[in-house]
């Protein structure tokens, strides 16, 4: 059984298609692994044992029927998957790891998840996250933290920490995450797996419970680049229900998996390697650059600019949008409502004060303040202008380079409890990831080494909008030279 869980999603899918393993066997192996390991890492908020097995049985029938007719299904048909708990799945508890949505069962499925279902995947459960995706450690979850499979005293990163940890722990071969300021790439880096934040507009946001609407993107988390490419090929679609969905989103990203980067121009921002960057991280990332160079890429350093302004601009914009997006949680239509209240406004205040955790409240307060009368221009509008400058800096860089290479985070996974006490320090950990969301770019995080403690180091590759194929190709080429260590758990 455990061998099944060592397979990548595409490997497992091909064995299922070939009839070597059934979807039920794969699903049970996944459920068993969750049963064995999740006590330790707590990657899941909800595990749907019954529903998953029933679905796997149906998939086995469909796969057999397709085989008899000589039809090919998606390479992921029958493969188990975990879904971050901020994506609606009809009839399945969807909490955003918050008390305020602790009992919320959506009546519709998000488009991204539906695309995966249409491709034949089996949903085994919903993964833990920072409450409403606000955090970089998965410690702000109302249901308690997730732990890093490589070291249970460390955080898995966040906010998609449950998804990244579940893949790293071989509980599932693949998972969906969402990335608003690094929430796929950073936990992928901390957990030694691969994750993609697609171009804004590539994957529908319909059914994703919004944090920062102009920044949020759903993306794949898996063991390697090929799995991510296979998942992205399913996820990417034009969705008429999402006004910000790109018309020509659909594509086959498997085409990009060429282990060759000859002639590819790769730029390394000098400003990504300054103060605050951990030595081990720096060494691994620069070694990866050397590898790509040896594979034929033209690699050079350059000054990107604006790097230090990305975090302040990001936190103003993300918190402002969040303060508005989270207004709907008021105890009227769904979710938690306080037990006792004197009138309407008292009901609102008590419900929200009791229902939201400290970090969420902190961001709602900040967001409400920067939008309030007298401060809007000084903070919010200024942040939007800076966003424009950041976008311009990237546009300029991409005139010269196909791919930008750098670290994902300044450090590897921190010890639990280390960063929560000092919010600004925690926010600074997002320095290499947030600008990508502001500019709407695609980015991939893939393992490139291990630090002195054996904790994984991630390599980040960024592309111009809708150039996912370039970063996939570079990541795939690098990966072909790199041996990933699994977490011993």
């Amino acid at each position, binding site marked *: 059984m455990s061998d099944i869980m060592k397979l990548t999603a595409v490997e497992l899918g091909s064995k299922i298609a070939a009839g070597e393993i059934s979807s039920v066997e794969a699903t049970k192996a996944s459920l068993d692994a969750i049963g064995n390991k999740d006590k330790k890492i707590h990657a899941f908020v909800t595990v749907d044992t019954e529903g998953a097995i029933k679905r796997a049985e149906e998939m086995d029938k469909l796969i057999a029927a397709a085989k008899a007719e000589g039809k090919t299904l998606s390479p992921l048909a029958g493969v188990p998957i975990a879904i971050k708990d901020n994506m*609606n799945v009809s009839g399945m508890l969807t909490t955003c790891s918050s008390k305020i949505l602790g009992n919320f069962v959506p009546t519709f499925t998000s488009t991204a998840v539906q695309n995966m279902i249409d491709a034949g995947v089996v949903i085994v459960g919903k993964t833990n996250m920072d409450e409403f995706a606000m955090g970089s450690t998965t410690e702000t979850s109302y249901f308690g933290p997730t732990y890093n499979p490589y070291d249970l005293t460390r955080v898995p990163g966040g906010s998609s920490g449950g998804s990244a940890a579940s893949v790293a722990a071989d509980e599932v071969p693949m998972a969906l995450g969402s990335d608003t300021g690094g929430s796929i790439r950073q936990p992928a880096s901390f957990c030694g797996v691969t994750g993609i934040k697609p171009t804004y507009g590539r994957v529908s946001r319909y059914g994703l419970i*919004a944090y920062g*609407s102009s920044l949020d993107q759903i993306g794949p988390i898996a063991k390697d680049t090929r799995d991510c490419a296979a998942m992205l090929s399913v996820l990417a679609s034009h969705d008429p229900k999402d006004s*910000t969905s790109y018309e020509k989103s659909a594509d086959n990203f498997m085409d990009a998996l060429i282990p060759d980067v000859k002639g590819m121009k790769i730029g390394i921002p000098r400003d990504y390697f300054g103060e605050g960057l951990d030595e081990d991280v720096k060494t691994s990332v620069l070694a990866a650059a050397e590898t790509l160079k040896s594979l034929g890429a033209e690699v050079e350093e350059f000054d990107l600019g604006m790097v230090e302004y990305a975090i302040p601009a990001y936190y103003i914009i993300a918190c402002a949008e969040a303060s*508005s997006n989270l*207004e*709907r949680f008021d105890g009227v239509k769904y979710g938690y409502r306080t037990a006792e209240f004197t009138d*309407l*406004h008292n009901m609102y205040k008590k419900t929200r004060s009791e229902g939201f955790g400290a970090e969420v409240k902190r961001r709602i307060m900040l967001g409400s303040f920067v939008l309030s009368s007298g401060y809007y221009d000084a903070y919010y509008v200024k942040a939007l202008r800076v966003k424009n400058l950041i976008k311009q800096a990237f546009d300029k860089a991409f005139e010269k380079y196909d791919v930008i290479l750098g670290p994902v985070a300044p450090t590897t996974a921190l010890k639990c409890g280390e960063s929560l006490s000092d919010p600004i320090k925690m926010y600074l950990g997002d320095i290499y990831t947030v600008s990508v969301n502001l500019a709407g770019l695609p980015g991939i995080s893939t393992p490139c080494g291990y630090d002195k403690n054996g904790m994984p180091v991630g390599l980040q590759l960024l592309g111009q909008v809708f150039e996912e194929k370039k970063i996939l190709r570079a990541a795939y080429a690098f990966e072909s030279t790199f041996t990933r260590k699994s977490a011993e758990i």
Partner: protein
Amino acid sequence: MSKEFEVVIGLEVHVELNTKTKIFCGCSTAFGGAPNTHTCPVCTGMPGSLPVLNKEVLHKAIAVGLATNCNITRNSKFDRKNYFYPDNPQNYQISQLYYPICRDGKVEIEVNGEKKFVRIHEIHMEEDAGKLVHDEWNENSYVDFNRSGVPLIEIVSEPDMRSADEVIAYLSKLRETIQYLGASDCKLNEGSMRADVNLSLREKGSEEFGTRTETKNLNSFTAIRHSIENEIARQSDLILAGEKVVQETRRWDDVKGYSYPMRSKEDAQDYRYFPDPDLVPIIVTDEMIDSIKAEEPEFRAEKKIRYKEEYDLPDYDIDQITAEKKMADILDEGVKLGGDPKKISNWLMGETMRLMKETSTDATDLKFSADNLVKLIKLNESKEINNAVAKEVFEKAVFSDNLDPEKYVADNGLSTKADAGELEAVVKKAIDANPKAVEDYKAGKKKAVGAIVGFVMKEMKGKCDPGTVNQMISSILD
């Protein structure tokens, strides 16, 4: 101390557009559904739902803007207006603040023969709120989201009006224009048109504005006039007493005839507007504007000229009929169907107006089609039914859907030609039963025939044409 005040009024007018679906989702805008049956994840603010703009809303908003001489904003956006209230499911309303779809328009009004322009500051698109139902018997209210997300345009005027008469003239002009465009039925009593009155006073001759109040919940022209008079009195009393007018929103209670402040300290009125990231910018092209212009209907002024030239109707009748687009439509369509403009106009000016007045019906509630009116006129003209029956049938038709007069006359046996044999027998019976009248008639008193005709009409219960009966009697007696 005698001060003379000038009243300064600006209006915010909300108009519900009559699209089939809501502004951001595919839910029906139809009235009358059970609570919450016209709802979906989008218009109930479910987590994860996203808005997508209804094309018709944009087109209708632009059409209203063009008809009110506005500049159309070529790069327009939606913003979120954040405030907590249970009828507002997301606790923000999607509206437009920074780049409204139309700006800088004007409409001409006429009061007591004097013409002036009222300038329009802007027109923006937004979503309507749901409905709160209050239970008298307990401590709860109920939210019904059927109206949540119904498209609105908000037309914001400059403070250009100086009297209640001007306000009503302006609203009538807007209503007429929007009704002619077919963008809304603009009913104040049903809330498809809602006017909030911003009013302040200043000393005559002063250039500066006084502190204004905003009065909401005005459901008729009468209420608007009454509330304006009331607010002028309230503000001038305050000023004369040396007190300050507080800038606030007030709610008009039409039954009690006064207004009171609406907000509590929990309403900061700081809406934290910012561009809605879920919706994309709207670029209005020349082609869009040209095609909307090409679809512009014939407006009232043009219609008036044509009715004079083509139909040669009296000026008063033309004014009355064109005041209601619905009536003008019936006239135009009836003529197209072969009806005589003067006869149709007579029915509109006579029976229609009378019945509307008697039942306080709005013209937009008229149910009969031009087709049926033309049929009715033909039935009457050909003596198939007499005038009294025609009026009776019409009274039924005005207030019910699709009543076909031909069918109705046949079904209810109202035709004068229902049974020629029966009529002949009754005429004979009438002659036998009225020997005195027959005698008088034969003696040259032609008028005496009336008694016989009356007998026949009574026996036939009106299902005959008096002219025909008269002829039949004459042909027997002469």
